[in-house]
C-alpha cells in the first residue's frame, strides 16, 4: 500500500513511535489469563493493553481479507480471488511493485473498477512493497510491521487518515469480476473498521 507518508517533525514522530514501540514490547496477557502472579500496578496496565490488543485482533479480519492480503504478498507476484490463487497470466511484481517492464499493472488496471471487463481498479494500482508484506505473518508480527519505520510504517496518528485513501477504500467497493460476480468485501464495514482503528490507536496501539 502506498500513501504512507510519515508526517510531522522527525523528532516528534520518533518520540511517538518510541512510545508505541515501548508499549508494544511490553508482554501482554489476555484478559482471560488467570493464575498470573498478581502485581497490582502491572495488572491494571496489562488489562488496558489486553483491551487495546483485542481491538487490533478485531481489525485483523480486514487486514487478512483477500481484498487486502492479495496485494500484501510476500511473493514476486500478486494474488487474486477469494481463494487467493496466484494472479493469472504470469503477472509479476516487477522491480518496483508496479509490474514487470512491459506488463505494468496499469496495462490492465485503471483508476476505477471496470464493470465491463471485470478488472478492478484504483488510482495507481500496484503491489505493496515486500517490506509491507503481510502474507505469512502472525497477528503479532503483522501488527508490528504496520508501525515499523524501517518498513515505511505509519505513525499511529496517521493511521486513520491512511484508512481513507483510495486503495483502502477500494477493499469495500471492489467491483465485479469478469463473470459479473461481486467481489467479497471485508467482514466489517469500512466505517466500523476506521472506528476500531481510532480506538486502537487511542488505547496505545498495543500489539498482541
Amino acid at each position: 500500500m502506498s500513501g504512507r507518508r510519515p508526517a510531522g517533525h522527525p523528532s516528534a514522530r520518533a518520540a511517538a513511535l518510541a512510545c508505541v514501540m515501548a508499549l508494544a514490547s511490553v508482554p501482554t496477557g489476555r484478559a482471560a489469563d488467570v493464575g498470573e502472579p498478581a502485581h497490582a500496578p502491572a495488572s491494571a496496565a496489562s488489562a488496558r493493553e489486553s483491551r487495546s490488543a483485542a481491538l487490533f485482533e478485531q481489525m485483523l479480519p480486514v487486514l487478512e481479507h483477500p481484498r487486502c492480503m492479495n496485494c500484501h504478498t510476500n511473493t514476486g507476484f500478486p494474488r487474486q480471488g477469494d481463494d487467493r490463487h496466484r494472479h493469472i497470466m504470469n503477472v509479476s511484481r516487477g522491480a518496483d511493485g508496479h509490474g514487470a517492464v512491459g506488463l505494468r499493472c496499469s496495462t490492465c488496471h485503471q483508476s476505477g473498477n471496470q464493470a465491463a471487463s471485470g478488472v478492478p481498479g484504483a488510482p495507481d494500482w500496484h503491489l505493496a512493497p515486500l517490506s509491507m508484506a503481510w502474507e505469512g505473518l502472525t497477528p503479532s508480527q503483522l501488527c508490528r510491521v504496520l508501525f515499523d519505520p524501517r518498513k515505511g510504517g505509519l505513525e499511529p496518528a496517521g493511521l486513520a487518515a491512511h484508512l481513507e485513501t483510495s486503495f483502502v477504500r477500494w477493499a469495500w467497493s471492489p467491483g465485479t469480476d469478469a463473470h459479473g460476480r461481486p467481489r467479497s468485501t471485508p467482514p466489517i464495514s469500512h466505517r466500523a473498521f476506521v472506528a476500531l482503528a481510532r480506538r486502537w490507536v487511542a488505547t496505545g496501539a498495543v500489539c498482541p
Partner: protein
Amino acid sequence: MMQLSVNGEPVRIEADPATPLLWILREQLGLTGTKYGCGKALCGACTVHIDGNAVRSCSFPVAAARGRQVTTIEGLSHGRSHPVQAWIREQVPQCGYCQSGMIMAVSALLAANRAPTDADIDAAVTNICRCGTYERIRKAVHTAAALATRAGS
C-alpha cells in the same frame, strides 16, 4: 465531447464515456488494427499505447483517454518500427489476429528494456496466440532489439 490524440492526430469523440477505448478506435475512428479478443483484459489483442505505456484498451474507458496520446498499431508502423521489421523478417504471424496487440506489447517492452532476456520476455509478453507463434515471437523480440541497437536508436 471528449478530445484526445490518436496516432498524432487530434480527435473529438461523442460517445458514452464508459465505452471501452477499443470500440471507439475500431468503430468511430475506423482503426481496426486493434482487435477484440476477450473483452476482459485476458488476451492482450486490444493493446495500444497511452502516453507511451501499454494499455489493454478493452478495459480502458474512453473518458480516461481525454487529453492523452493514444498510439495504435497503425500509428506505430509509420517509419517501420523495429518490432514490425523483425516480425516480417522472422515471418512471425500465422493467422495474425493477435499480432497487433503482441507488437504493441513488445514495443512497450523494448522502449523500457533495450536488451530483454528470455526471462524479461516471459514476464512482459502475456498476450495469447492461439496459433502458437511464440517461438518466433521470442526470436523476433531479440531481432528487434538487435536492429534497434544497430540503428543506434
